[in-house]
């Protein structure tokens, strides 16, 4: 979707709040949101792509005014309501409705395994259409749903520099329409192709693009 989250190349966001070796959390409530995000029993049909899309679907004024972990909190709150696990009234009152306790299977601390790998690469029969070195053009797509092809890289010509194999396609996976594994490539675009003649001719941006978003140039 063409939302405010797709901000590559936008002007006006001011200076970067950079500090050398900045700590990841500023307040303790941010730690609690981090933990809640992963420890809370997810909806049965939840996917990471769905999480991203739900965040993109935040009203833009909230997306832009909330701090990062407030966006996660908003995501978590809307998700537990949407899945039926809690009601809006319960969230607003902060209290469980009488006789509403149903789950007893929340994950315990032994389930926390940072080094366990979730693989998004899949084996497919289809041969890749493109090879390293090919010139490709990204399609001019503006889907209402989730996609990982940013606006600044649409309808642009680049070069295939890596083939990652086939990966789960976010465009379908975010919408419960299946994983549709699709060949994924890293495409290198010159800064001038993306930003015009004033961009530095030495520079480039590379991003991962699924085959269904590419055509031969």
């Amino acid at each position, binding site marked *: 979707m063409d939302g405010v989250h797709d901000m590559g190349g936008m002007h006006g966001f001011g200076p970067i709040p950079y500090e*050398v*070796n900045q700590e990841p959390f500023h307040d303790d409530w941010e730690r609690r949101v981090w933990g809640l995000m992963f420890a809370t029993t997810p909806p049965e049909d939840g996917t990471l792509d769905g999480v991203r899309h739900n965040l993109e679907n935040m009203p833009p004024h909230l997306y832009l005014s909330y701090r990062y972990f407030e966006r996660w909190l908003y995501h978590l709150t809307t998700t537990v309501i949407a899945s039926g696990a809690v009601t809006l009234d319960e969230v607003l009152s902060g209290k469980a409705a009488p006789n509403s306790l149903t789950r007893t299977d*929340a994950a315990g601390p032994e389930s926390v395994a940072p*080094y366990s*790998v979730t693989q998004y690469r899949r084996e497919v029969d289809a041969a890749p259409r493109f090879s390293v070195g090919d010139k490709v053009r990204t399609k001019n797509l503006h889907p209402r749903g989730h996609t990982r092809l940013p606006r600044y890289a649409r309808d642009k010509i680049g070069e295939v520099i890596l083939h990652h194999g086939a990966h789960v396609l976010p465009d379908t996976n975010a919408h*419960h329409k299946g994983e549709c594994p699709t060949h994924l490539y890293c495409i290198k675009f010159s800064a001038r192709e993306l930003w015009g003649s004033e961009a530095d001719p030495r520079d480039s941006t590379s*991003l991962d693009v699924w085959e269904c978003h590419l055509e031969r140039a």
Partner: protein
Amino acid sequence: MAEKSKHAAHDHPDLSHLPSDAALRVRALESLLIEKRLVRPETIDEYVEKFEHEVGPHNGARVVARSWIDPEFRTRLLEDATSTIEEMGVLGAQASDVVAVENSESVHNLVVCTLCSCYPWTLLGIPPSWYKSYAYRSRVVREPRAVLQDFGVELNENVEVRVWDSTAEVRYLVVPERPTGTEKMNEQELAAIVSRDSMIGAARLEA
């Protein structure tokens, strides 16, 4: 559910009556989810503990230091970082598929996620807020040299700047240049000087 998510924007409930103080909203939701048994407080604590302290840039730094002292490892890392890093046991959450890109005298690499906040957690830990800021996400693809200047990174003439926008479940790890004056350091000493920001491409290392 498919129909619902298609119109998710219109389905978001009105939460405007919740307290404006984020800390209060978190406390209320946490206590409700605990009461509803949707979460166990000790699991929340464990996620914070493991990701804030157990994983982190020390993992990425070990990969970088080894690539500096072991040419065969370096070659494999640049060709197939995923299996090379897997051998070191530090693949994991948000780092299942990894590509290593190396800085040199003529190339400087810089990583971003313009669409959200993708970042290799097991290798670099939880991202700093500047990495997730709108200013970084919006500016770095358009004007990477100005961004690097703001970070205090001086580039030599003729250096090519390569930006990597993390749009898939592939994470990019920058291998910074080994500083001069570190020739006598062993692998462990070298790992100790590799900063997190240098592995994003936001800093250069000094001995």
